[in-house]
């Protein structure tokens, strides 16, 4: 077993454990912090796959923005962090059914996949994945349309937030 494989197993176990804690702890702030651990684990997977840009983007967006926003929301809402509330709402049966179906679907797809034993191939020394990604995002024959659509959507959200928060001056 190579050191990388050992690292992968450790990180995978930690990520799954953290994800389990997210849904099972009663304290909401703790759940959010466990979510941070799980997201960090995903970032480490990206690093192991030589996708440095995705790894840091994962940390900046999911930990730096989304997780902090969640923790903030929980802290600012009175008494939701107490441990006396029930952990499930009446829709838990549907959620369970969908989760089981999704897992079964994924397992079924992966069972026919033959790439479990492939080793990661080293990237060519000259290759700069970041440059390739950047060019692909603005190339007309690649992803420029989805990229621009996402930009417009985010801009609309930004302007919307300003409009909502605008203090009407009389």
């Amino acid at each position, binding site marked *: 077993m*190579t*050191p*990388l494989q050992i690292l992968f197993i450790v990180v995978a176990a930690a990520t799954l454990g953290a994800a389990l804690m997210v849904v099972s702890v009663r304290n909401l*702030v*703790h759940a959010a*912090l466990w979510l*941070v651990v799980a997201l960090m684990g995903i970032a480490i997977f990206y690093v192991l796959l030589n996708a*440095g*840009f995705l790894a*840091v*983007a994962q*940390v*900046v967006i999911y*930990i*730096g*923005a989304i*997780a*902090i926003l969640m*923790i*903030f929301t929980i*802290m600012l809402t009175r008494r939701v962090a107490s441990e006396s509330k029930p952990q499930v709402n009446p829709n838990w049966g549907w959620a369970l059914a969908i989760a089981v179906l999704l897992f079964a679907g994924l397992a079924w797809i992966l069972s026919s996949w033959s790439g479990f034993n492939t080793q990661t191939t080293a990237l060519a020394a000259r290759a*700069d*994945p*970041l440059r390739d990604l950047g060019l692909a995002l603005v190339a007309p024959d690649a992803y420029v349309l989805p990229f621009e659509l996402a930009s417009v959507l985010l801009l609309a959200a930004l302007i919307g937030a300003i409009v909502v928060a605008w203090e009407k001056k009389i």
Partner: protein
Amino acid sequence: MADPINLIATWLQGLLAGWGLAPEVVNFVMTALGVVVIAIFVLLLDIFLVWLERKTVARFQDRLGPNRLGPYGLFQPIADVIKLLIKEDITPKGADKVVFNIAPILALATVLLLWAVIPFAPNLVGTDVNVGVLYIVAIGAISTLGIIMAGWAANNKYALLGAFRTVAQMVSYEVPMVMILLVPVILAGSMGVNKIVASQSWWYIVMVPVAAIVFLISSIAEIGRAPFDLSEAESEIVAGFHIEYTGMKFGLFYAGELLHALTIGALFATFFLGGWRGPFTDQIPILGVGYLFVKAFFIYWVIMWVKYSLPRLRIDHMLNFNWKFLTPLSITIVILVAILDKLLAGVARPVYAGVMLLANLLVAWAALSIARSRTRHGPARVGEPRPVAVPPKPAGATPKPPVSTTP
């Protein structure tokens, strides 16, 4: 002799391989050793920083500073560390023990992590990742998390208020900081920190001084030093997020803050002052370490100079300054630099630098004159005075009705 550190690394690698270890394991051991060496070096530097900070603030305030222990009081921080270590370690009642204990570690560790991408010399860098700049931003995001955890877990309302303030400050000042970090990226054409240094045959502070200043201001806010130290405003919320921490746990926050200031100095030196660049680095690469630290300590001194000269800002002023001045300014600078960089492709370096400098000065002048035209002179009137006692009017004047004092 020109490059002792890589010499030692090569020798050690040969030694480990000679013991019959697999190349992967040798690689792993060398990486781990590198991490330990950089971390220990930076942490030892941190102890010295306590002395430096206290001496400098003493000079600013016309005092002597620590001068009893050892020459020039040099051993004072060691005594401080021993004191912090043997102090009683208190966990407040109702605190969230695990989170409470992880927070100070996270606060110091995030600062240490930044040193992984700072190039010390042309061939001496922790890890030269091609997304170095983004990595720095990501680590900044994690340090915010450490402060939230500290403030929440202490079960103290002042700590929580301090954490809220810090997060509001860090999240908003991150915006101009990230924007402005794009400027060296555009100029160098790479996100790798070492490439940014290598391409600075002209220091970027000469080309884009406004970007450099915005970066310095937003990073001072990011580390929460005066005039942006709202999060620990002693007169309002006692000590902010680290109010309940004692002994070495407080020490970790303190060390983290000092080290963060020096780290900002090193980052500023790397992005705008040419990092390890200096005379004779081509022949003797190890000189680069010296150059980097001279520049980093100079910026550290500037940060201290600002800290001990300016009073604390009010929170709404601070946020207004960020959103209404720094953010538009940094967006303008980024757009301008990107357009000029494309327009000036292939132009001789002095012309390129000159046009960039001119554009920057123009933007600075425009921004300052817009800001000046909106300045309010004198304090804002938030209400009319209601005198309780009215002086007697001279005879003949019509008596005014008495002013009601009940609200």
